[in-house]
């Protein structure tokens, strides 16, 4: 059964509330009327989640040209569209161009961090980019069936991961 909003009698009632004052009664309101009364809170500006969802939908309509996975974690643009989450720290490098407009919109136009920097930042960044480079090399070596090279790169990856 569909109720019409008891306030405006126009829109479908989707918010059902029980008042206790001045008397106990149930009321059925549309979203807009409920927001006007403060029963539900409707934000006047876009939430970041809405921005993310719009970005995903819009990008799906466009279809990404390439669906190359991230060499580090295997995530593809398609995976990102399904979950709204990236797969690893390196996805931000691999899919940098793709993500840039989303990041700017979600952060009010900002594209640069100005906050806290961890004491290990330089080492961390070397490790991150080093791992990404090595994983690419590993993939290449395997594709070229150069197993000796692959084994060497694998050892380097292990050494860097445990450093």
């Amino acid at each position, binding site marked *: 059964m569909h109720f019409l909003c008891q306030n405006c009698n126009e829109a479908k009632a989707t*918010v059902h509330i*029980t008042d*206790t*004052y001045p008397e106990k009664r149930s009321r059925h309101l549309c979203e807009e009327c409920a927001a*006007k*009364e*403060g*029963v*539900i*809170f*409707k*934000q*006047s*500006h876009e*939430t*970041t*989640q809405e*921005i*993310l969802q719009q970005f995903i939908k819009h990008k799906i309509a466009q279809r990404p040209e390439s669906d190359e996975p991230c060499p*580090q*974690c*295997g*995530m593809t643009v398609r*995976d990102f569209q399904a*979950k*709204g*989450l*990236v*797969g*690893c*720290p390196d996805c*931000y*490098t691999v899919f940098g161009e793709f*993500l840039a407009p*989303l*990041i700017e919109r*979600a*952060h*009010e*136009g*900002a*594209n*640069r*961090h*100005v*906050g*806290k*920097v*961890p*004491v*290990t*930042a330089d*080492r*961390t*960044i070397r*490790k*991150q980019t080093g*791992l990404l480079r090595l994983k690419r090399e590993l993939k290449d070596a395997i594709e070229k069936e150069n197993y000796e090279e692959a084994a060497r790169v694998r050892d380097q990856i292990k050494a*860097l*991961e445990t450093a």
Partner: protein
Amino acid sequence: MTIDDLTHNIGEWLRGVGPMCDVVISSRVRLARNLVGQPFLSSASASEKTEIYRHLTHEISSNELSQHGFLVDLEDTDEIDRQFLVERHLISRQQAAEEGSRGVSIWPDETTAIMINEEDHLRVQALRSGLQLETLWQEVNKLDDSLSQQLEFAFDRQLGYLTACPTNIGTGIRVSVMLHLPGLKLSREIEKVSRATRDMNLAVRGLYGEGTEAVGDLYQVSNQTTLGKSEEQILEEFGGKVIPKVVEYERSARETLAGKHPHQLDDHIWRAYGLLCHARCLSTAEALSLLSHLRMGIQMGRFDKVDIKTLNEVFLLIQPAHLQKVAGRSLNGVARSIARASCLRDRLTA
């Protein structure tokens, strides 16, 4: 310490003290962090998740600041206990619902919790009553520094701390406060909150997060932008500007109501008390909305049958998982309404 030990207390965040506590129930600061060289949980396999979980719990329990926390392995925790932790704001609803290796380290006074394997590898949060953002930031910042001695967090010069969702990168900070706004609600001026929060791009939600109704006149305000502003800047805009403005709106709405309609206002408060003391079945939403009126009455000095401490205790005790923990078994909706009404009669008429 175990989850059961928490049942006998209320967390610091519900003590009803601290700056602006007539309107600001509690504040929270949370940092999102991920390990370098590891996949985010979004693409980690079950065994990778377990490996990350083991590594993190080991480091957390040997860290000088976090070793006092007690660890709850959520994979081994039943649904009522998980819901219980959500009601106490110690884990997120998402983490309660998720599957696989995950957990939380909780400080015995419930001021700090470290969620492990939520959306990010770590979510470090501090929580206190009233508006205390500075203190909270100092606490989480210190803990983050200390954990960074043992754990290496994913970081990029341009994008800052890297998180599973691009909307959290940069500082990875989420600042939020829970506001009690019965005055603005009664005078139908809640839109003022929307206007006050728009410029700083803040999000406003109901008590239980995204898309929920503002049950009990409780609203959660949090920052959405995490990149391009420093932590201090975010805290200052939030706690120094926007929140005090909303608190002013609420206080003046309450004053206007008291000046123009004192009898209706008192009737409102006392009727709520009457229902709470005599009803035999109460839903969570109805109970919270009645308790909201009592809280307003106490804060305005118009009602003294119940003190704020009792009110804050029942606020937690009437929530579904708390009722079931006290009962020692799972209760269906009807049984919960009955137990809730009975709990309120006991506590409020004593």
